[in-house]
Structure formats: C-alpha cells, structure tokens
C-alpha cells in the first residue's frame, strides 16, 4: 500500500492548509490522544503537566507537526528522509510502534473536526496511507 502520485498530491494539497494551524492541530491531536488512549500517558510522566492544552503538550504537539512537515517534504523517500527520527524513536524514545497508529488516528479525527469539508474520503484515504508510511519509516531502525 505504498503512496502513489495521487496520494502525494492529496497530502501536499491539504498540508498547505494544515501548516497554517500546525501548532494548534498538533496540540489538540496530542491532547485528544492523552484523553482517549490514557495508556499513552506512560511516555510523558516526566512532564509537570499532562493535561490537554498545557504548555508541555503544546510544545510537544508543535514538535510532532514539525516532524510531519519534514515527512511531507521527504515524501518521495520517507525511509531515508526520516532516518534520524527513526533512530531517535528506536534508541532514545523507544515508543512502541503501535502508538504511531493511535496518534495517526487522533490526527485524522482532529483534521475531520477542523476541516470537515476539505477532509473528504479521498483526502482521508491518502492521509491514512501517508501516516502508515511515516509510521513504517519511523519503525525502520527499531530492530
């Protein structure tokens, strides 16, 4: 289920809009994840405040969206483009890859709430594939 040219075009098309509110989207999606999937909080116990919209959550949401922006720019070769991030997730952060699907789902839900008209089934399809491909690239260095 690799990304075809239609998927890449769809991802880039909507990313233009997403980038304008990236910080908010990142913060909201992360907040959503921490509430809907409380087991994900286990990765953030070092934060003084894990509540939705808190400073650490906002800062981290921004970081995540920055990573996704990088992925969009490297969409033609995600494995190479995200190699450094993969090493970070594999050796330092050691996030279980099942959580990539969880966060992806929360970002998709956030996109649906913020862009109800633009997040058509076709955009949903391409973004679902894109996030799966990003998750795969991030898992590359795990073992």
């Amino acid at each position, binding site marked *: 289920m690799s990304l075809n040219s239609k998927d890449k075009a769809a991802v880039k098309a909507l990313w233009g809009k997403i980038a304008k509110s990236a910080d908010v989207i990142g913060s909201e999606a992360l*907040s*959503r*994840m*921490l*509430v*809907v999937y409380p087991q994900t909080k286990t990765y953030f116990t070092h934060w003084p405040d894990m509540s*939705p919209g808190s400073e650490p959550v906002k800062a981290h949401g921004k970081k995540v969206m920055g990573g996704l922006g990088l992925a969009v720019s490297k969409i033609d070769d995600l494995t190479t483009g995200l190699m450094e991030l993969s090493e970070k997730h594999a050796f330092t952060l050691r996030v279980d890859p099942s959580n990539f699907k969880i966060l992806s*789902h929360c970002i*998709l*839900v956030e996109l*649906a*709430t*913020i862009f*109800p008209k633009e*997040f*058509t*089934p*076709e955009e*949903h*399809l391409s973004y*679902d594939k894109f996030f799966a491909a990003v998750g795969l690239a991030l898992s590359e260095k795990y073992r």
Partner: protein
Amino acid sequence: MTQYTLQAHRPSNRCLWEGRRVALKVASGAGDLQTCTGKPRDSKMVEWTDFERATIVDIFSKMQYEVVGPAALARCLIVYPWTQRYFGNFGNLYNAAAISGNPMVAKHGTTILHGLDRAVKNMDNIKATYAELSVLHSEKLHVDPDNFKLLSDCLTIVVAAQLGKDFTGEVQAAFQKFLAVVVSALGRQYH
C-alpha cells in the same frame, strides 16, 4: 511462590494473569466472583459513567441518520477498498465519486446506523442485544470481524466532522468505547 499461568480457557470474569490467585482466594472463602482488584463484578455488565451514557444518548438523538450513515459507509468503502468485497451486487463502486453517489450504499449506510439504535437503547446489555446480528454477520454474511473496527473508525471521523469542536477528547473516548462494545458483541458468535 505463587505460579501465574496464562489461562487459555479462563472464564471471562477473571483477570488474565491473576486467575489462579483469585481462584485460590475464592476457595478460601474470600467471597464471590472477583476481579484483579478484588471487587465483586457482574460479569455481564459494561460499566458506563453518567457522562458516557449522556454523551451517547445525546449524539444519537441529534444524529442525521440519512447523512451520517451513507457518509460513514461510503468513506469505509473508499478508504479501505477491500471492504467492497461484501458489496458485489451494489453496482458501480469504481471510484470515490461513484461510491459516494451510489444509492444502494446510501440506503445500506442508513440501515447500519439504525442498527446501532438498539445498542443505544440497551446500553446495559449490548452483548445479548446483538447476539442475533452477530450470528447473521458470521453465518450468513461471512464478514471478517476486523471490518467492524474499520467502519467504526470511519463513523468516528464522520461524527467528528459533524460535531467539530464539540467532539472533544472526552466525547471521542465515550463514543469509541460505545462502538468498541458493539464491535465486540458483533464478533462474539463467530466460531
């Protein structure tokens, strides 16, 4: 030292790892059915908070079935095209536009969504409520139960688009929990 073993055939009211230890407690007269935390539990009940009940009832009372149902099913057929395998007689499903405009998809989407009504009305016994539908999906329709999760995800996205800001994390958690219980009940009679 107490040995904990993975119990392949444990009764569903026992914790996976604690089964034997709890069994020992029961044998020593500690009381009736117990969970890992030692609290008694009616093994049939899913526990719903007041917020969860109110949220589910609220979402479905305001639901536009003829909009949300068709949108959710169409989205599922588009985003996860392999789900089209169950709709060979639905005519033109060749592309997203065809699927979104297909009247059979629309009709069936509405039917599916109304199928959730019985869960809303019987939140304290969803398992029994769906026993018959579970048999139908397994024996007659031969639907891979993984598909229930795919449709649930699409329904969540469509409802999120409808409710916008009101679809908070807490509302999403309640909605997804509700759908997970329905999905579990639908998969129960498969063998």
